C-alpha cells in the first residue's frame, strides 16, 4: 500500500509539470487552432534563458525571472509573426509541419548558443521535502502542482469571463465571424503565443530544477500529446487533469509493470493510453465533441 501511495503521489507531482506544459499547448490550440509540435523546444529555450540570466549573467533571482518572462513573451511574439501568421487559413497539415520545422530550428539555436554540454540548473524552489500522506515529496513537485493549479484557475476564469478571453475563443472558433465583429484576430493569435511562451517559461523553471539541463529535455514536448488527447485538445481543465492522470499512470506502470516488462515501460505506456483514447474517445475527457470524421 505504501508503495502504491508513493507512486501515486509522485505521479501527481510529475503530472503537475505535464499539466503546465500541456496548458501552453492547449492555449495555443484553443486560441489559434494551431497544433504546436515545438512546445517542448520553446520550453527548453526558456529554461536556457533562465539559466543564462541567473548563472551566466548572475542577475538576482527576481530580475532573472522577470527578464526570462519578458524574453519568452518576445519569443512567442516573434514565432507567431514570422512563422505562423503567413499560414493563417492554410491546412492543418502545413501548420503541423511548420511547427516541426520550428522545433528543429529552436533546437539548433539552443545547441548553437549553449552547446551540447549538460548544465546544472540553479535551485530556485529550495526547501526541505514535505511529508504528504506518509510519502515525502520534494518542494519542487509541490511548486509544480501549485503553479499548475494556479494557472488552471487563472486561465479558466480568463477564458470564461474576461473580454480578451472571449475574443480569443471567438477568434479560434470562426476567424471570419470574429473579424466581422471587430475582433483583431491577428492580435489575439499573437497574444496567445505570448502567453503560451510565458507558461513555457514557468514550466521551464520547474523542469530545470528536476533534471540537468540538456537538449534531450525537449522530449517533454512530446509527452504533452498523450496528456492533451486524454484531457481534450481544447480544454484547460482537461490539460491539468490529463497531466495528472498521465503522470500517475506513468508512475504506476513504471512501478508495477517495470518488473515484468523490459526497458522503459514508463515512457511507452502513455502512448498506448493515447492510442486507446484515440480509438475510443478521440475528443478526450473534456474536449469539444466535434471531430471531423468520414
Amino acid at each position, binding site marked *: 500500500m505504501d508503495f502504491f501511495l508513493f507512486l501515486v503521489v509522485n505521479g501527481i507531482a510529475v503530472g503537475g509539470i505535464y499539466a503546465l506544459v500541456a496548458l501552453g499547448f492547449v492555449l495555443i490550440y484553443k486560441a489559434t487552432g494551431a*497544433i504546436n509540435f515545438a512546445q517542448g523546444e520553446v520550453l527548453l529555450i526558456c529554461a536556457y534563458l533562465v539559466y543564462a540570466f541567473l548563472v551566466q549573467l548572475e542577475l538576482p533571482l527576481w530580475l532573472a525571472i522577470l527578464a526570462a518572462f519578458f524574453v519568452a513573451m518576445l519569443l512567442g511574439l516573434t514565432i507567431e509573426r514570422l*512563422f505562423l501568421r*503567413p*499560414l493563417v487559413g*492554410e*491546412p*492543418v*497539415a*502545413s501548420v*503541423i*509541419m*511548420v511547427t*516541426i*520545422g*520550428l*522545433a*528543429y*530550428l*529552436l*533546437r*539548433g*539555436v*539552443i*545547441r*548553437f548558443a549553449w*552547446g*551540447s554540454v549538460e548544465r546544472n540548473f540553479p535551485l530556485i524552489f529550495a526547501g526541505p521535502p514535505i511529508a504528504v500522506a506518509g510519502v515525502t515529496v520534494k518542494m519542487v513537485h509541490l511548486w509544480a502542482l501549485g503553479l499548475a493549479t494556479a494557472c488552471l484557475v487563472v486561465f479558466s476564469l480568463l477564458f470564461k469571463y474576461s473580454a480578451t478571453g472571449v475574443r480569443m475563443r471567438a477568434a479560434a472558433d470562426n476567424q471570419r465571424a470574429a473579424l466581422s465583429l471587430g475582433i483583431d484576430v491577428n492580435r489575439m493569435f499573437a497574444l496567445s503565443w505570448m502567453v503560451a511562451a510565458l507558461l513555457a517559461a514557468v514550466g521551464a523553471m520547474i523542469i530545470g530544477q528536476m533534471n540537468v539541463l540538456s537538449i534531450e529535455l525537449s522530449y517533454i514536448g*512530446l509527452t504533452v*500529446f*498523450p496528456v492533451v*488527447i486524454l484531457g481534450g*485538445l481544447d480544454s484547460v481543465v482537461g490539460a491539468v487533469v490529463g497531466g495528472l492522470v498521465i503522470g500517475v499512470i506513468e508512475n504506476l506502470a513504471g512501478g508495477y509493470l517495470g518488473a515484468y*516488462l*523490459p*526497458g*522503459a515501460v514508463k*515512457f*511507452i505506456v502513455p*502512448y*498506448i493510453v*493515447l*492510442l486507446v483514447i*484515440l*480509438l475510443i474517445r*478521440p475528443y478526450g475527457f473534456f474536449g469539444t465533441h466535434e*471531430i*471531423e*470524421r*468520414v
Partner: protein
Amino acid sequence: MSVGVRPCGEFARGYPEDERVLKTRFVRASMAAFIGLLFILPFIAGGYVLAIVSGILIAVVGATGLNILTGYTGLISVGQGAFMGVGAYTVAVLATVWNIPFWLTLPAAGLVTAAVGAVFGLPSLRLKGFYLAIATLAAQFILDYTFMNWESVTKGAVGILVPRPALLGHALANDAEFYYFLLVPAVLGVVVGRNLFRTHVGRALIAVRDQDLAAEILGVNVLKMKLVAFALSSFFAGVAGGLVAYYTTSVAPGAFNLSLSIDYLAMIIIGGLGTSTGPILGAIFVLLIPDVLQHLIEMLRNVVDVSYTFAALREIIFGLFIIGFLIGKPEGLARFWRDFRAYWKLWPFAY
C-alpha cells in the same frame, strides 16, 4: 503533374498516347540518357560520390512511399522511420536466422511492414489531420520500444549484424556492386510510385485527399483506401529499411527514431508533396545538406572556425528549409523543376 506545355507539332493521336508518362521524344531520350548515366556512374565517379548517391537511392524509396501516404492521400505520418525499422529487422532476422537470399527478404520486409503499417493505420479510419499525426507518433514510440526490448528477436540494444547480400553465390562486396544493388529497387520504386497514380487505386487515394466526403459519395471506399495507402506506403518503407539493413550491414534500434521520420517528412515537403519528382529531389536535397555544410565549414575554417557547431547549424538550416518551403514555396522543389523545364522549353521566348 504534366506540364501541359507541348512543343509545337507534337500531337497525341488517341488516348493511350495522351496518357503517356514521357510524352515527347526529347523527354524519352533524356530519361533514357539519365538512366544510362545512373547505370554507368560507378565507372566515372569515385567512392565518395557513390556513397552519397547510394544513400540517396535508399531515401528515394522511403520518400516515395511516404509521399503516397502524406502527399497523395493527405494522411500525415511521423512514423516512417519506425516502419523502415520494421523492414530492416525483418530482413535482418530472415537473413541471419534462415539464411534467406535478398530477393526474397526484401519483398518479405515490404509485406511485413505493410501489415504493421495497416494495423497502425487503423486509427485513420476514425481520425483525420492532427489526430492521425499523433497516432503515428505513438506508433513511432511503440515500435522504437519494441526494437529495443523484444530481445529474443531484435537482440535489444546490441542489434543484429546482417550478412552481405549474395547474388548467384557471389557476395556483394564493393561500393559499385552495392550501388547496383540499390539502384534497381530505387528505379523500380519510382516507376511504381509514378504509375500507381494512373490506376484507379491511385486516383481513389487522391480523391480521398481532396474531398473525402465527395470521394465516398462517388463510390470510393474511403476507409479501405486509407488502409491501402498505409499498407502501400509501409511496403516502400519496409523495402527501404531492408536496403538500409543490407547497406549498413547492421541493424540497431537507435537508427530508426523520430528524427529519421522527420527527415523523411522534410524530404517530401521540400521536394513537393504529391508529385512524382518531389521525393527524388527532396531526398537529394536533404541528404546533401550535411555534406555541403561540411564542405562549407571546411572552406571557412581559415576565416571562422565553426566546426564545433556543425550539429547546430545542420538543425538550424534544416528547420529553416522546412519552414521556408512551407511558407514560400508550398509546392516544393518539384515546382522549381517544372518551372525550369517550362522556361527552357520556350527559350529564348518568354511565352
